[in-house]
């Protein structure tokens, strides 16, 4: 073979190989596009979660649970199934979220329960309405809120508690606590939002020269400036949960921590949380 023939043969092989690769790529193309689309939806949720955290958390709660008296929950069954009918919205719930968030809300539709800031109850968020967020960012937040739908709790009935509430008497005999369960409760009961991932309240983990909450509890109740009734570390922690203002940790304002945990936690849950906190030295 001379050089021309070699080059023609090799060229043909290359073209065939290229065609083969393109064919193989084309066969997988549907799947790749579907995966990319799912990945896009996933990253919209990630971005939405971060935007929610910076813009919405203070009113609607870190987990969308709402704040009684201030803002409605965005994560419960009622919101996803009945809210659009109640307000007479004809589109989907996702459109409702985008529209409401974009333009804000001048006056609350439920002023007795969720008054917000007053007027406007919720400020507008979209740039086109004078807010700080772009349209795509609002769509991402909506994607994040929609992701609560699958696990939305039903709050139309009073929350079913697994037992009687602990109450506010800190001398009650608590059952044996399980720290592993307590760790889970810290997230589901909203403690983590203030004590672990953010520093709205005193951090639980040890940090710098400050020991963890477990170690602090051991010494706190005997300190000179202590104003509460506790006589042991357990009692101090229980008091901090069910009657937070009995002693307010230095550097923090009173009333920041929810005041009603005595009614919403069972004795077992309180014991689990305390066992968990004591393990953080």
């Amino acid at each position, binding site marked *: 073979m001379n050089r021309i023939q070699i080059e023609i043969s090799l060229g043909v092989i290359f*073209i065939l190989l290229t065609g083969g690769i393109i064919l193989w790529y084309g066969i997988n193309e549907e799947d790749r*596009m579907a995966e990319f689309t799912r*990945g896009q939806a996933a*990253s919209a949720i990630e971005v939405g979660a971060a935007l929610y955290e910076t813009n919405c958390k203070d009113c609607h709660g870190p*987990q969308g649970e709402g704040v009684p008296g201030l803002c409605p929950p965005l994560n419960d069954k009622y919101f996803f199934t009945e809210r659009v009918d109640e307000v007479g919205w004809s589109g989907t719930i996702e459109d409702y979220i985008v529209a409401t968030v974009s333009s804000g809300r001048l006056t609350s539709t439920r002023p007795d329960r969720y008054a917000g800031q007053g007027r406007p109850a919720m400020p507008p968020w979209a740039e086109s309405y004078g807010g700080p967020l772009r349209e795509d960012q609002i769509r991402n937040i909506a994607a994040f809120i929609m*992701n609560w739908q699958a696990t939305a709790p039903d709050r139309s009935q009073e929350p079913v508690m697994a037992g009687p509430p602990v109450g506010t008497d800190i001398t009650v005999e608590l059952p044996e606590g399980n720290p592993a369960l307590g760790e889970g409760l810290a997230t589901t009961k909203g403690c983590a939002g203030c004590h*672990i*991932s953010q520093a709205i309240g005193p951090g639980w983990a040890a940090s710098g020269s400050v020991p963890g909450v477990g170690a602090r509890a051991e010494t706190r109740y005997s300190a000179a400036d202590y104003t509460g009734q506790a006589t042991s570390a357990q009692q101090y922690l229980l008091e901090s949960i069910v009657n937070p203002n009995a002693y307010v940790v230095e550097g923090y304002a009173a009333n920041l921590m929810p005041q009603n945990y005595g009614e919403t936690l069972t004795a077992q849950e309180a014991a689990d949380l305390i066992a968990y906190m004591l393990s953080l030295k």
Partner: protein
Amino acid sequence: MNRTLDFQDLRKKAIQALDNRVRIITAGLGLNELRAVMRGDAPTEKPNPRYKVHTTSFLFHIRPRYYEKGSTIFAHTFRLGFFTSFFFFVELLTGLILMIYYTPSPAEAYDSILNLMSNVPFGKMLRDIHRLGAEGMVIFTVLHMLRTFLTGSYKKERSFTWLTGVVLLGVTLLLSFSGYLLPWDQLAYWAVTIGTSMAEAAPLFGNEANLLLRGAPDIGAGGLLRFYLLHVVLLPLAAILVISIHYYKVSREHGISLPASMEEGDVPAEVKKNARQRIDFIPDLFTHEVFLVSLGLFAMVAGVTLLGYSAPLETIANPQVTPLDTKAPWYFWWLQGMLKLGDKSLMGIILPTILVLLLVGVPYIDRNPYRSLYKRPFAVGIGILSVLVLVVLSYMGLPQYGIQTPAATRIIQDLVPEEGVGPLRGVPYEQLSAGIYEVGESVPRDLCPSLDFGCPDLTAVFREFSERVNFAATQEDLQPFERLPDAQAVMVIEDWQTDLKKITLRINWNDVITGDAKSYEKHIFLHRERVHE
């Protein structure tokens, strides 16, 4: 008898008619001649019909009739100029298709890229090839320039070819750079913001130049449209024009230079004669080019599939958030490096202008008549030195170099960069087991013993976190900004939503100088189905 005669007659007539058609289409090559071309046989007619093609066909008229044998040696040109033009044509073609799906406005540009990747069959492949072609063209242009410099091919009658080459280098870099902005992601937006801010530093008309480029004080709808039009209209037109001139000089006027070793000094007459033998375009050079094109196509398609080259896409451009590490495209790192060395208008405008002038002036400054490497040690030395300086400057242009990012920020940013993947995001979702992980003196062998297969990747990331924090906490001879005295660090993983985790990285330490308690933290969210390239 009559019937067969008639048949033969008919057959002859038909072949002749066909032959005529073929000659019209191929601008002069008959059927027999075509067959000979494909086989690599000698011409079948006289005068050689293969030369006729070059006068009658437009496309062939700008191609050379022949090159001298010596100049076609692979190791003389490495076909670098050829492949540069190859990349350019690939860019034209893929670019035209990409234009169908692209909308040049800040509200839609990014979405149109997402749509291209999620909804258009072969859309991602097209985009990857277009990106690969752009980088390839830059690389090959520079290597081609280096080759013509080293073979001394810019001398005498070829000095104008060199000049058009320098213009092409500029056009190539601008083409790449203007295309960089179009996806409208963070990477693009900030690289171009930095790039255009250099125009601002130009003496006298800096402000105007900046406004002209960006269309407004900041890059927005106006700037994007301008860059788009530069990228798809003005610069390609300029490139086509100047490449044509450049190529015409080579193919029709001077040919490709002969290697100096076959031309200069006392070369035996035999060798000289051999080197000057003609290699005809049809069929030799032409088949060679078709072969190179099929090789090039194969390499590119394999590159974006088998080798996994993929065009990056970061989060949508956000003028409010300046990324911690802004980075120019790699072929401008040297410029970023220079900017760290001095004043913006000196390093960003005046010195580069001088550099361009020097490059233009090479054929006129270098009066040495010889082309052989051995007879121009000074020029070759300068060439090698320039390459080294470029490499060093590029290294200095990296965001990690010479910028004092505080240790805590640096460590966390390295684990979870604002853009791109980074070690932590690369951990498989199943391994992100919720918990509070405190950095201590020793790192546990497996962070999550309760998981069936443990979490080796998460543990590895946590180990890196621990080691870097402990290093910064204990080494006292580091610079103050690199130290984290009394550091306490924690990684918190929380179940946040269905298929969504929240991860917090936090470092607390005491300031080296004031002793104040300091803290740096970062929260990220990770979804199960997020695709990390």
